[in-house]
């Protein structure tokens, strides 16, 4: 009897233990069970299938040899249902985790480690913004249909799963798929808005402005630098609004600020450009786009053809949303770069009674109760206060790293009920320039430079978004929320957004530089960099005509413009180390390593001592501001304020050069064949950071600030070149593969092609080749 109880008990305890996740250790029993666990996550990529989706008309869907489906639907309802089904079939866990992250629901499956991240996403108003967008979208019949059909498609797939079919990540982490809803699509879109516009420098500039004297501040962080290579060379505006007067003291004074992660997001950027017939060797307009985003496995993009009725489109879709985001159709092609115009501002809120102070009157907060469920623990209830500006993101219950004493409300364009789906659908079916302009009017946040080319040879670019007519420097720093004049005012009519069509020079290009030249009448600020745009402009003007092959080389261009420009000033102190360098950031480039190490040391030597009292640097100035300083032998910024002596340029350059040499010696010695690639270390981590499912290191050329922007913070997530001839020819590649299932042969099959700078041909039609796989949907 004793032994019976002993062994039964032992067995049951063990079964319990192996059925439970312990921190990061998965439930090994259920995971390793070959009948239902991870062993069942083998994939038969090639197997033909028959799927009942309740379609109006049967669809024979063909996949090509990269597992790219050519979706056809007589109606948008059928097509979006199929797209939803396929997104789920190949990317379900990715969609799940993205929406959980966006809506602050990670802790539900991960546990207490992610509580702060969840609270941040709730308090920045992600769900609030997504709900507003959902309302707007549901009022538009087409968008509503798209959302509902797409969700139905996703849910058809989820319902077809039994436990053993759940994607591998569910089994490792130990959670279950849940139904898709239209709100989740909105969350995916808002998450994109957050990636692209949720990273402002308002905090760091506020700290800098308070720490430095006015003259030094203006020198280091000029409001508008003179831009030699703006996107829009000549702004075309009509009936411009009057710029409002700035209030007397709009910004807050900071007594104490804390160090926080401050380097502005230079990794995220993008390139796009178009050339018109006069610059094209074939006479066809050509469009190029490579959006730089944090890269992961599975890829952020899912490539597909999407035919609705007679309208054929091709390009990349975003798992979680219906439509082709970047791509082309029979008539036009389009692409995006981030605009970086600041559309997220902060207000310091003063408490008054039970509410808050605006112009000496007490205003009432509204409340939004956020319940954050936590795995293995009781839920946290976070009551977020909302002001007329937006949610109170930071307060004593959730202090910001930078200003722990302040209550800060966030006003963000992404809070508004925008309808990007309508823009995407419009672009997918646009026949001409007018259709394109009408479509992108619905693209309100994030700010995007949307480039255009058509089969008739027209090219264009609109710097598109919803913008406020701001007074000078409005929203550049944290503003005083008790003064209503600091609130956002009127919206600039969309037809006055900066744009160009068919300029004489025959090309238009954007690469996250300043949007406009000085003739643009409205105030805006943002994080702009011109290294890539300068290089691209040089390339675009250097040649009379370009073929698609030339443009491929241009997308893969590894020229280090920053190094070239800086070394023009500083190379005399480099002991000849760069004399033989052609500024190419090849995988093994020792010069690139030494330059970047040196430049960082120079930057620190110039700037760190300006913040002696603060003891940290809120953000480093633009590289070209530093170069201006270095043009002088004895600029006041050059002197190290921490020492008695007066330092000169040669002092700090010599010292920093030898320090940089010492620092990189080990890398150069141990990695003679991949010094630069190893130094910048590009990886392709699994989106859920599950070890073993990503690629730890990809030896690749290029880097931050280089046209081929493959860096650890972001990389070309989709390279696309579209020649608008007859037929339309496209060349594409992305770092990843169509399938999100790690055991699939299509999980990361394109990575090497991407790394080595090769492209795949793509077209609107499936063509005559044999299908790799078929699914018949009915």
């Amino acid at each position, binding site marked *: 009897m004793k*032994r019976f109880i002993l062994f039964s008990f*032992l067995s049951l305890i063990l*079964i319990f233990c192996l059925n439970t996740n312990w921190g990061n250790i998965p439930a090994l029993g259920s995971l390793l069970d070959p009948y239902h666990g991870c062993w069942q996550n*083998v994939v038969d990529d090639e197997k033909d299938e028959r799927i009942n989706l309740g379609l109006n008309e049967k669809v024979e869907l063909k996949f090509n040899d990269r597992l790219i489906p050519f979706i056809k639907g007589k109606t948008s309802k059928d097509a979006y249902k199929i797209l939803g089904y396929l997104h789920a079939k190949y990317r379900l866990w990715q969609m799940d985790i993205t929406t959980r992250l966006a809506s602050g629901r990670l802790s539900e499956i991960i546990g207490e480690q992610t509580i702060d991240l969840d609270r941040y996403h709730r308090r920045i108003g992600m769900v609030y913004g997504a709900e507003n967008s959902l309302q707007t979208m549901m009022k538009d019949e087409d968008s509503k249909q798209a959302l509902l059909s797409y969700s139905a498609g996703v849910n058809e797939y989820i319902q077809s799963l039994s436990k053993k079919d759940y994607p591998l990540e569910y089994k490792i982490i130990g959670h279950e798929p849940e139904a898709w809803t239209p709100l989740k699509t909105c969350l995916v879109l808002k998450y994109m808005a957050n990636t692209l516009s949720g990273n402002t420098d308002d905090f760091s500039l506020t700290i800098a402005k308070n720490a430095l004297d006015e003259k030094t501040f203006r020198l280091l962080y000029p409001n508008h630098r003179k831009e030699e290579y703006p996107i829009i060379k000549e702004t075309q505006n009509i009936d411009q609004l009057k710029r409002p007067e700035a209030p007397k003291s709009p910004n807050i004074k900071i007594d104490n600020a804390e160090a926080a992660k401050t380097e502005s997001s230079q990794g995220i950027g993008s390139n796009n450009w178009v050339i018109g017939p006069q610059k094209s060797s074939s006479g066809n307009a050509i469009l190029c786009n490579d959006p730089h985003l944090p890269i992961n496995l599975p890829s952020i993009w899912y490539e597909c053809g999407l035919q609705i009725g007679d309208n054929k489109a091709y390009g990349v879709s975003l798992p979680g949303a219906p439509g082709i985001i970047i791509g082309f159709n029979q008539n036009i092609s389009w692409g995006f770069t981030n605009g970086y115009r600041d559309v997220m501002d902060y207000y310091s809120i003063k408490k008054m009674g039970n509410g808050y102070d605006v112009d000496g009157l007490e205003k009432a907060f509204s409340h939004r109760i956020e319940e954050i469920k936590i795995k293995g623990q009781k839920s946290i209830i976070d009551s977020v206060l909302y002001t007329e500006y937006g949610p109170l993101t930071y307060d004593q219950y959730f202090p910001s790293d930078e200003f722990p004493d302040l209550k800060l409300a966030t006003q963000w364009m992404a809070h508004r009920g925008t309808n990007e789906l309508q823009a995407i659908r419009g672009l997918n079916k646009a026949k001409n320039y007018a259709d394109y302009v009408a479509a992108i009017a619905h693209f309100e946040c994030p700010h995007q430079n949307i480039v255009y080319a058509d089969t008739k040879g027209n090219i264009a670019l609109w710097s598109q978004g919803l913008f406020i007519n701001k007074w000078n420097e409005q929203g550049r720093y944290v503003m005083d929320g008790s003064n209503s004049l600091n609130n956002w005012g009127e919206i600039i009519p969309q037809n006055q957004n900066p744009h160009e069509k068919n300029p004489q020079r025959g090309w238009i290009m954007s690469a996250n530089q300043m949007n406009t030249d000085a003739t643009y009448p409205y105030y805006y600020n943002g994080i702009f960099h011109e290294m890539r745009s300068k290089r691209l402009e040089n390339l675009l003007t250097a040649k009379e005509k370009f073929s698609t092959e030339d443009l491929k080389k241009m997308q893969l261009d590894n020229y280090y413009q920053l190094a070239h420009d800086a070394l023009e000033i500083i190379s005399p102190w480099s002991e000849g180390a760069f004399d033989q360098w052609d500024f190419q950031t090849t995988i093994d480039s020792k010069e690139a390593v030494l330059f970047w190490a040196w430049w960082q040391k120079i930057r620190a030597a110039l700037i760190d001592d300006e913040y002696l009292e603060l003891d940290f640097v809120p953000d480093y100035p633009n590289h070209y501001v530093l170069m201006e300083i270095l043009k002088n032998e004895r600029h006041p910024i050059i002197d190290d304020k921490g020492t008695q002596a007066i330092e000169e340029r040669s002092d700090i350059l010599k010292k920093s050069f030898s320090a940089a040499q010492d620092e990189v010696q080990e890398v150069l010695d141990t990695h003679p064949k991949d010094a630069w690639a190893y130094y910048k270390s590009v990886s392709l981590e699994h989106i859920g950071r599950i070890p073993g499912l990503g690629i730890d290191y990809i030896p690749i050329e290029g880097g931050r600030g280089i046209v081929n922007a493959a860096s650890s913070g972001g990389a070309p997530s989709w390279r696309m070149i579209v020649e608008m001839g007859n037929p339309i020819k496209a060349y594409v590649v992305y770092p990843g593969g169509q399938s999100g299932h790690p055991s699939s042969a299509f999980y990361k099959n394109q990575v090497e092609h991407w790394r080595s700078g090769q492209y795949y041909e793509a077209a609107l039609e499936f063509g005559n080749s044999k299908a790799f796989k078929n699914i018949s949907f009915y």
Partner: protein
Amino acid sequence: MARAKPILILLGLNSLLQFFIPFWWVIGISGFLVGFLLCVRPMHAFITGCLGISLSWLAMMLVTDATHSFALSKNMSAVLPLGGFIPGFYLLSLFIGGLIGGLSALSGYYGKKFFIDK
């Protein structure tokens, strides 16, 4: 040979029960049943449970994994801290299946002693 028969029976029973009880801990039930009904000594019960379940698992593992160019075990041996060593992943799986199988068969054996043979 007669001693080995229960192993084969367990192998078959466990594979069959998967269709009716789609949970990993079904191995505890099949192990218990065979231990209860067919095993003659404690050691016999443990080894029967251990080998019966391990073999039933190994067969399924090979059928799924080997027909898919070992992509799954390659991935999983990197996900779990096994340094990408595929046999390590097989052994870990077999160890867990075998341990539960052995213990539950042992419980079954002592259950029979307690309820029937007392």
